[in-house]
């Protein structure tokens, strides 16, 4: 069942994205929605290197992570001084602007995207190998998030989310912490991007737009913002459910909007009745 493996790869990639995004927004309280752009940066860097240099996939993916981290630090240094709602809008401007640029220049393939990404791990077990690698990496990412959030660093980050001023007045240097979690989270997104590009062998700008931001945000909110397992559950539900719905033999003109309606109404219901998500406990996050 290659299909299951392929859905599994997607779940694992989204676990990475949601867990790293949750680190930034759920634990760190940094209201950015530009996560997909770092996913895109990782994917485009890895693909372009893979296509143009023929370097091994691992190197290209690592380079993708590197560029995502550098870009995120650059964005962080310039915009993290802006707080709250402004950061949200600034990140949106960064995301849409960069995507527009990718769309308009030639070497990224423009709106047609990149379709000749080299085939890696060819063979009958390709999907299963990818599933294994992605699952392991996703587990490592979740473990790293957990490990960093249970210790003193995590405590300071959560304190910062709850009250920046009080946290600074206790002697914690917020800016460095913000940059670190932002860079880490975006690096993970870059990793997911590289893997995505190599597995699916096709990327285009529209895969990284605001709809993608909304998807990842929905995973985090639905699962439980500011919790370890929330994003994992959210990613699983949001990838698996639509797949399950396609097995329901509904008329296909209904399926798309119906899925959309189900998910958006779920989010709305959760926001009001269970703001702490599927796995969160009361007050477990910034959701309230």
């Amino acid at each position, binding site marked *: 069942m290659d299909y299951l493996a392929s859905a599994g790869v997607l779940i694992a990639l989204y676990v990475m994205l949601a867990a790293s995004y949750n680190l930034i927004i759920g634990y760190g309280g940094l209201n950015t929605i530009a996560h997909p752009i770092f996913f895109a940066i990782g994917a485009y860097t890895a693909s372009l290197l893979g296509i143009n240099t023929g370097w091994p996939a691992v190197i290209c993916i690592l380079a993708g992570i590197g560029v995502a981290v550098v870009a995120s630090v650059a964005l962080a240094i310039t915009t993290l001084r802006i707080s709250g709602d402004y950061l949200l809008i600034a990140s949106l401007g960064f995301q849409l602007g960069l995507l527009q640029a990718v769309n308009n220049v030639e070497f990224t393939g423009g709106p047609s995207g990149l379709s000749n990404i080299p085939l890696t791990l060819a063979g009958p077990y390709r999907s299963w190998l990818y599933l294994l690698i992605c699952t392991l990496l996703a587990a490592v990412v979740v473990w790293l998030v957990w490990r960093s959030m249970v210790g003193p660093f995590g405590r300071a980050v959560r304190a910062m989310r709850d009250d920046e*001023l009080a946290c600074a007045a206790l002697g914690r240097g917020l800016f460095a912490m913000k940059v670190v979690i932002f860079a880490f989270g975006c690096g993970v997104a870059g990793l997911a991007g590289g893997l995505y590009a190599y597995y699916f062998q096709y990327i285009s700008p529209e895969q990284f737009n605001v709809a993608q931001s909304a998807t990842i945000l929905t995973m985090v909110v639905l699962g439980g913002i500011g919790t370890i397992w929330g994003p994992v559950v959210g990613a699983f539900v949001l990838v698996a459910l639509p797949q399950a719905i396609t097995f329901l033999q509904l008329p296909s003109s209904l399926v798309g909007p119906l899925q959309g309606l189900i998910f958006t109404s779920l989010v709305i219901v959760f926001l009001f009745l269970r703001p702490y998500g599927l796995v969160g406990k009361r007050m477990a996050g910034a959701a309230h």
Partner: protein
Amino acid sequence: MTQEILRLENISKRFGGIVVADNISLTLHAGDVLGLIGPNGAGKTTLFNLISGLFRPDAGRIFLQGELLTGPLYRRARAGVARTWQHMRLFRTLTVLENMMVAPRDYPGESMLQSMAGAGSVRRAEKSARDRAMHLLERMALAHIADTIVVDLPFGQQKLIGLARALMNDGRCLLLDEPMAGVEDSNYETMQRIVRDEAAAGRAVCVVEHNVSFIKDLCTEAVFMSFGRILQRGSVDDLTRSRELTELYFGIADA
């Protein structure tokens, strides 16, 4: 002569056209518990914000234990300025113990890598912070709520935790913004006792309070402020006996 902890030299600050600190000079020594009183808008909390680094003064200098105090909020906290807030500003999703353990000056967790690696030095620092926090809570007879999320606590206890968190910073300068407002009964007594003990242990404490009777219960000395200026410094009794100040205070406060 006891040791000088905090010295303000000719501090001035304006916001737009409003003068909130007008050439203020003030010295605090170890063991002092100095009350700041004055009508609303006199610049009491602003003075705290100037000392702790939330605002930069337009003119004047601040010294902590003889050294020039500069830099942003967090540097001054590390230098030894601990403060509480009128509205407490507790970390609402953290437990009491976690709230307190954010505060030590030699915090081990600012590096993500170090924190994750959980190296020996980190573990030792964490243990010592935990021990100190538990000891403080025991002194407040609050050890049983160490693992409670702070928002679930009654108001008076939250105020005490605000103080306890500030005390985790073992610097010598302690600024308390309305510590007694809304605190009653046994919590009131605890607050009083802890503040006095800390002063006796060598801290210089400065308290902003509205209610003069709190100041009487807490402070050895007081300063009367109005429109960003220090009008008079003296014993609490002296200040409250001054007809001029009383009129100024209540006259404006009632307006």
